[in-house]
C-alpha cells in the first residue's frame, strides 16, 4: 500500500522575473457587468461565488455596465477623479522630496488610488478607517489638509505626530483615520474592535479596515475575521491585493491556490472581489458592504484586485525582482485614466480639463510643500522641542521619564 515516491518541496515563483516579458495570462479579467449583485440580506452561503468572480463596472469603452453600476452623480465622479489626481500629485511630490534628501522615507499609492478614494466616498464621513500605509487617498478624499500630511512627512515643528513617526504614518481622529502602525496587520482586529464598540453602544457608525495581500498571512487577519464573524461586527474588511509584498508576489501569501476573497468563506462571511482600478466597482462594492454593516448584518470582506504600480517604498527597487514594464501592462488599466475616460464618455470631461486640473493640483501641492518646508524640522540642532519625546508615553509622565528628560537637557 505504501507509496514510497519521494516527496518534494514546492516553493512558489512568479511567472516572470526581470528581463522577462510581463505575463498576465493568469489574471482573470472577466467581462464588466457579469457578476450579479445580490440583496444585502442574502445569506452569505448563497453568494460564495462572488469570492471567485471580479466585480467590474467600467468597460473598455468607459461605459458603466451591469448591476453593480452605482449610478453616481457626475459631481461625485468629478470629486473622485480630483481626489485621485490629488493623491497622485501629492505622492509624486513627496517621493521626489525623499529622493532629494529632504525626508527619510515615503510610500506611494500609484495605481491604487481608486481603492482609498472610492471607498472613502462610499463610506459616511464619520465611519472609522483603520488603514495601512497605502491609503493616503482616504485622508485626501475626506479633505484632510495636505499641509498637515506634509508636516508629518517632513517631521517638522507643526507635525501633528510631533516627529515621532516615519513619514507617511499619519493619524487623524477628527478625520476618522486611525494612527498607522508600521506593524503589518495589527490594525485589522482593531477595526473589528472599534466596530464592536459601535455596536455595543448602539451607535450607527461602522468601521473599515485595510490590509495588504502579503499581510493577510499575519495572525491579526485571522483574528479580525474570526471576531468579526462571531460577533457580527459592523465592519468592512478590505484586502488590497496589489500583487506584491515588497519583492514577494501574491502567490507567497496563498494566491496560487485561490483568491484572497475566498478567505471569507471559511468564516461564513460574504466576500466581494472587485476590480480595484475601477472607481465605480470599488464604490459600489463598498456601499453594498457598508449598507449591510449598517443593517446589523455584520462584516463583509472585499478583495480589491489591483497592482502596485511603483516601488514598495523609497527604500525599494522593484526592477530587481519583476519586469520593469509590468505596471503599464496591467490588464485592468489605471484607475485615474479609467475614471477620466468614463467622465469623458459622459460628456463631463476632456483632455483640456484634465490638463488644467492636473496643473491646478500640482500647484496646490507645490504651494503646500513650500509651506511645509518653511517650517523648521524637528531634531535639528535649533529645535527646542527635544523633550517632547518624553510626552505621551504615558498620560502623565512618570518620574523616570522626567528624570531622563532632565538628563537629556543636561
Amino acid at each position: 500500500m505504501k507509496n514510497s515516491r519521494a516527496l518534494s518541496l514546492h516553493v512558489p515563483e512568479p511567472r516572470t522575473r526581470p528581463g522577462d516579458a510581463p505575463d498576465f495570462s493568469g489574471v482573470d479579467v472577466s467581462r464588466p457587468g457579469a457578476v450579479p449583485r445580490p440583496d444585502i440580506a442574502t445569506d452569505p452561503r448563497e453568494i460564495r461565488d462572488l469570492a471567485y468572480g471580479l466585480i467590474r463596472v467600467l468597460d473598455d469603452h468607459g461605459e458603466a455596465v451591469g448591476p453593480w453600476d452605482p449610478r453616481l452623480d457626475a459631481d461625485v465622479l468629478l470629486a473622485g477623479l480630483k481626489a485621485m489626481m490629488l493623491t497622485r500629485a501629492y505622492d509624486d511630490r513627496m517621493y521626489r522630496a525623499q529622493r532629494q534628501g529632504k525626508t527619510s522615507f515615503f510610500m506611494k499609492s500609484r495605481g491604487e488610488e481608486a481603492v482609498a478614494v472610492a471607498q472613502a466616498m462610499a463610506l459616511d464621513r464619520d465611519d472609522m478607517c483603520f488603514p495601512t500605509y497605502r491609503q493616503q487617498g482616504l485622508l485626501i478624499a475626506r479633505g484632510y489638509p495636505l499641509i498637515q500630511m506634509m508636516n508629518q512627512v517632513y517631521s517638522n515643528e507643526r507635525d501633528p505626530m510631533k516627529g515621532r513617526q516615519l513619514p507617511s504614518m499619519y493619524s487623524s481622529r477628527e478625520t476618522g483615520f486611525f494612527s498607522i502602525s508600521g506593524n503589518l496587520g495589527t490594525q485589522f482586529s482593531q477595526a473589528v474592535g472599534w466596530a464592536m464598540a459601535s455596536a455595543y453602544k448602539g451607535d450607527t457608525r461602522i468601521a473599515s479596515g485595510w490590509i495588504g495581500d502579503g499581510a493577510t498571512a499575519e495572525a491579526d487577519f485571522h483574528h479580525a475575521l474570526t471576531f468579526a464573524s462571531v460577533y457580527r461586527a459592523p465592519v468592512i474588511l478590505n484586502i488590497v491585493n496589489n500583487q506584491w509584498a515588497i519583492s514577494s508576489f501574491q502567490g507567497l501569501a496563498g494566491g496560487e491556490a485561490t483568491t484572497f476573497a475566498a478567505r471569507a468563506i471559511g468564516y461564513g462571511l460574504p466576500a466581494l472581489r472587485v476590480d480595484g482600478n475601477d472607481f465605480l466597482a470599488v464604490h459600489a462594492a463598498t456601499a453594498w458592504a457598508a449598507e449591510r454593516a449598517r443593517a446589523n448584518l455584520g462584516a463583509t470582506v472585499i478583495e480589491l484586485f489591483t497592482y502596485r504600480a511603483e516601488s514598495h517604498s523609497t527604500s525599494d527597487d522593484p526592477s530587481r525582482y519583476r519586469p520593469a514594464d509590468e505596471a503599464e501592462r496591467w490588464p485592468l488599466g489605471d484607475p485615474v485614466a479609467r475614471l477620466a475616460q468614463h467622465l469623458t464618455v459622459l460628456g463631463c470631461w476632456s483632455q483640456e480639463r484634465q490638463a488644467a486640473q492636473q496643473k491646478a493640483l500640482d500647484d496646490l501641492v507645490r504651494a503646500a510643500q513650500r509651506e511645509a518646508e518653511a517650517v523648521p524640522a524637528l531634531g535639528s540642532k535649533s529645535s527646542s522641542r527635544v523633550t517632547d519625546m518624553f510626552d505621551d508615553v504615558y498620560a502623565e509622565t512618570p518620574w523616570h521619564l522626567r528624570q531622563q528628560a532632565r538628563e537629556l537637557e543636561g
Partner: protein
Amino acid sequence: MASMTMIQALNSAMDVMLGLDPDVLIFGEDVGYFGGVFRVTDGLQKKHGLTRCFDTPIGEAGIVGVAIGMGAYGLRPIVEIQFADYIYPAYDQLVSEAARLRFRSAGDFTAPITVRTPYGGGIFGGQTHSQSPEALFTHVAGLTTVVPSTPYDAKGLLISAVESNDPIIFLEPKRIYNGPFDGHHDRPVTPWSRHPASEVPEGYYTVPLGKAAVVRAGEAATILVYGAMVHVALAAVEDSGIDAEVIDLRTLVPVDIEAITASVKKTGRCVIVHEATRTSGFGAELSALVQEHCFYHLEAPIERVAGWDTPYPHAFEWDYFPGPARVAAALRRVTEG
C-alpha cells in the same frame, strides 16, 4: 465593609465599575456565562447583561486587538487572559500597539485597556500555568504593570487600572486568590478572612498606581517584593527573626522610587524577591536602581531571590518556588555581610 477573598475583591471591583461606567465591559475566554476558570467574573454577565461580560474565541491577540479598537472608540475594556502563560500570542498587540498608540499618534488615539491575568506558580500547574512574565512588560515603555498582594489592594488597584487612561497589565497572583499563602507549603493555608486586608469596602474606592506600601517597618534590611511573594517575605522575616522592612511595590512600572530609596538608605541592606526567573527578571532592574540611588548607603551586596532560570517544573514545584527558607537565608547573608 465585608471580608473578601482576592477573587471576590476583584469581582467586586469589576461589578462596581460595570455599574458606574457604561463604557466598561469585560471579555475573555470563558469569562461570560461560566464566570472564568478562576471564577473572578462569576455572576457579572447575569447581573450586567450579555454584552457587558462575554466569552471570546481563543485568540489572545484577537482579544487584545479588539480591546485596543474599543479603547480607540472610547470604551474601557477589561480583558482576561486565562493564564499569564498564554499572554505571548498577544504580546505584539500589547507592545507594538497598546503601549505605543498614545505616543505614536501624539495623543490622538489612546488604549485605556486593562489586561487582567492570573499569574505565578505554586498550584502544580507545570510550565504552562505557573509563569511570572512581569519583566517582559516592565521593559516596555508605555505599559503600566500592577501586581496586588491583598484583597483590599486588588480591588482598589483594579479600579485605578480601569480608570487609567493608559494600558495596564494587571497580574493576579493566583496562588493567593483564596488565601495569603506564605510559601510554607507543608502547613495549612490560612484563609483571607483571617487577614486584615481582606476587609474590603463594598463600593467604589481606589488604591493609587505607582505607590508602594510598607507592609512591615523594620531596620535591619529592606525587602523589595510584590504579589504572592509579599507573604513569603513576611514569613521569612518571622522565621529568621531579622527586623526587615518589607516593601510591597504594588506597581512595578512606574515604580515607587521614593519608597525604595527611603527604606534602603535607612537599612543599608536590600533583598529583592520574585518568583520569575532570575536572569533579566524585574529584580535586575530593582537591583540596578537601588545601587544607582543608594550606592553609598549599601553595606552589603544586594541579594536577589528568584525562580531558577528554568521553565517551571511540575514535580519540583517546591524546589523551584523561592520559599521563605531561601528568602531568610538571603536576609541572613545581607545582614551578616
